[in-house]
C-alpha cells in the first residue's frame, strides 16, 4: 500500500529525514518510535503533504501513485489521514460543517453522490459512539476551547467519518490521561480492517498496550535504525533510548 524509499526531507535547509525506508501492507499496524527530535513528526507531516518540508531525495508510492506529487487534499481524498499532534483551533468553523464539506469533496473524488443532511447526521451519530464524543462539541467551533482529550477524540472521530485507507496518528497519545487514551485507542481498533493500515507515531510504549502493532520501528537521526515486533517496544520502555543511540553512534563514528 505504502512504500517509502530512501526518503530525505529538510526544513529551512536542515535535513531532518535522512533516508527512510518503510513498507506498509494492508491490514498492518506499524509503530514509529524514537527519542525527541528524531524526525517522527516530520515523517508524518511529509506523508500528509505539509508544505514547509522539502523532499530532497527518495520516493513515496501509495497504491501505485507518487504520493509526493499530490496536494494535501488529494492525498486525503485518496485515503490518507493524519491525526494531528496539535489539532488546530479554528474559530467560526464547526466540526459538523467542515466535515460535511470535506466528506462530500472526498465522495465527489470517488465518484459518489454527496450525502444529504439526514444520511450525514445518521453517519455522524454512529461514528460519535466510537469515540464517545458529544454532539454539542461538534457543533461548536472546531477545537476551540476543547480539552486535550476532546481534541484527540475529535481527530479520531474525523478519521472514522472519512474512513481512510492509511491513517497516520502523530503522537495522538501524548498528554492524554488513561481514560482518554483508552477511548482513543478503542476507536482506532474498531476502525481497523484487513484493507486499511495504520502508522502510529509515538514517544511512549504505553499506547501500544492498547493499539497492538505488527511492527515497531525506531527512528533516530532521521533514519530507521531498528525494526522489530511489539517486544522491541517493551524493551525500549525498560531500557530507554540510550542503548540504541549508543549502538548507532558507535557504528557511524
Amino acid at each position, binding site marked *: 500500500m505504502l512504500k517509502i524509499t530512501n526518503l530525505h526531507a529538510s526544513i529551512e535547509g536542515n535535513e531532518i529525514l535522512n533516508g527512510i525506508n518503510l513498507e506498509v501492507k494492508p491490514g498492518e499496524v506499524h509503530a514509529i518510535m524514537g527519542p525527541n527530535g528524531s524526525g517522527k513528526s516530520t515523517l508524518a507531516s511529509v506523508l500528509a503533504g505539509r508544505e514547509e518540508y522539502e523532499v530532497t531525495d527518495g520516493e513515496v508510492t501509495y497504491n501505485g501513485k507518487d504520493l509526493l506529487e499530490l496536494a494535501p*487534499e488529494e492525498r*486525503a481524498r485518496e485515503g490518507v489521514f493524519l491525526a494531528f499532534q496539535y489539532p*488546530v483551533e479554528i*474559530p*467560526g468553523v464547526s466540526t459538523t460543517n467542515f466535515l460535511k464539506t470535506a466528506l462530500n469533496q472526498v465522495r465527489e473524488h470517488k465518484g459518489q453522490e454527496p450525502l444529504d443532511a439526514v444520511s450525514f447526521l445518521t453517519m455522524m451519530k454512529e461514528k460519535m459512539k466510537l469515540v464517545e464524543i458529544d454532539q454539542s462539541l461538534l457543533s461548536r467551533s472546531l477545537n476551540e476551547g476543547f480539552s486535550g482529550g476532546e481534541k484527540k477524540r475529535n481527530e479520531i472521530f474525523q478519521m472514522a467519518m*472519512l474512513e481512510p485507507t492509511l491513517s497516520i496518528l502523530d503522537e495522538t497519545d501524548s498528554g492524554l490521561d488513561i481514560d482518554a487514551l483508552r477511548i482513543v485507542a478503542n476507536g482506532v481498533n474498531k476502525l481497523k480492517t484487513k484493507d486499511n493500515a495504520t502508522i502510529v507515531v509515538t514517544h511512549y510504549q504505553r499506547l501500544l498496550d492498547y493499539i497492538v502493532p505488527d511492527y515497531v520501528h525506531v527512528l533516530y537521526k532521521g533514519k530507521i535504525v531498528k525494526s522489530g515486533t511489539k517486544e522491541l517496544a517493551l524493551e525500549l520502555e525498560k531500557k530507554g533510548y540510550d542503548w540504541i543511540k549508543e549502538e548507532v553512534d558507535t557504528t557511524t563514528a
Partner: protein
Amino acid sequence: MSEVIKDAIEQEFTTNFEALEKRLNGASALPIHQVRKKAINAFQELGLPTARNEEYKYTDLKKALQKTFDFKAPSPQGKINRETIEECLIPGLDANILIFINGVFSNELSTIISPEDQLTIKDLEAATMEDKELIDNYFAQYANYEHDAFIALNTAFTEHGSFIHIPDNKLVEKPIALYFFNDAQAGKSYNQPRNLFIVGKSSQATFLEVFYTVGKHESFTNIVSEIVVNENANAEYYKIQNNRDTAFHVGTTQVWQARNSQFSAYTFTLNGAMIRNNLNIASDGEGCESHMYGLYLLHGKTHVDNHTEIDHIKPNSFSNELYKGIMEDQSHGVFNGKVYVRQAAQKTNAFQSNKNILLSDQATINSKPQLEIWADDVKCSHGCTTGQLDEEALFYLQSRGVSKERARVLLLYAFAVEVLENVKLEPLKAYLEDLISERLHKDF
C-alpha cells in the same frame, strides 16, 4: 470672517451657504438658523481636514473631494423611480421604510407601519417648525461642530433628513429603515442629510441606515445622525454600506446614553470610493451598556476609515467593541478606536478588539487603538491583529480533503461570522450573509 477662509473648496461652501440663507427666507428666523450660522463660522475656522490633521491622517478627504466635486451650487433634486428603489430594499425585512432622495425625505415613497402612538417620524425640516422644544433641547447638542469640519458643514447646511421621536415606555417592534439614495444619473450629486433620533425613557427601537447611489456619476454624502438614548432605553443601530465605486461618504453617528441604557451599533461596509465613518458614544450614566460591531470587506480601490470613540463619563458601565476587516486588491482600511475612561468612571469595563486579514500585497490597513484611562479601578483591554490567512488552519482543512480554495473561503467566512452572528434582525443577517458569501465566492 473672510480672512480665515483657506481654500477654494471652503469658499465654494461659503457661497453655497449664502444661497441657502436666501432660499430659507422666513425660516431663517427660527432658532435653528442661529446654529447653522455658528456652524458655518466653525467650518470656516476649521477648514476641511487634510492628511496633516491627525484624525484624517490616512484619509485625505479634502484632496479627494476637491478633485471630484464642485460645491458652488446646491446639488439638483433627484428623481429615482419606485422600481429601482424597491430592488434595493432588504428582502423580507418588515420595517418602517423611509426613502431619501439626495438627502430629502420622500413622503410619497416611504411607508410607515408602526402605530402613531409608538413614534413620530417626519422630515427634519417639518420638525424644526412643529417640534420646536425637542429640536431646541436635542438638535446639535451632541455632534460637536466646533471640532469636526464635516459635522460643522452638515450642521450649517441642515435642511432635510429625519426627525424620529419615540415617547417613553414604547416598544417599537418594527425596525425603522432609512434608505439614502443618491441620484447620480444626470451628473454628480452631493447632499448632507441630518437625523435626530430620540428614544424615550424605557423605550426600545431599531434603526437602519442604508446607502445607495443610482447612476454612473460620483456622489458624496455627508451625513450626521444624533441618537439620544434616554434612561433605561434600548437602541440598536445598523449602518449598511454596499455602494458604488463612485460613492464618497462621510458619516457621523453621535450617540448619547443616559443611565441604564443600552446601545448597539453594527457597521457593515462592503463597497464605495472613500468612506469615513465616525461613531462617537457618550456613556453618560451609570449602568450603561454599549456595543460596537464593525465588519469591512474591501476590494478594488475602496478606502474605508472607521473612527470610533466611547467616552465613559460615569461609573459602572460596560462597553465592548469588535471590528474586523478583510482587505483584497488595492483596498485600504483604517481603524481608530478611542476609549476614554474619565476619573469619575470607576468600575468601567471596556473591551476593544480589531482584527484584520490582508489578502494581497497591495492592500493596506492602518489600525490604531487609543485608550486613555484616568480612573484607577477599571477593567479595560484591547487587542489588534493583522495578518494573512492562517496557513496551519488551511493545511488542517486540506488534510481532510477540502480543496485549498474552499478551505480559504471557509476560513474567511468564519472570520466574518464572528461579527455577523451578532446581528439580531434575521432578514438583515440573511441579506448580509448572501452579500458576504458572494464576495468571498462561497458559491464555489
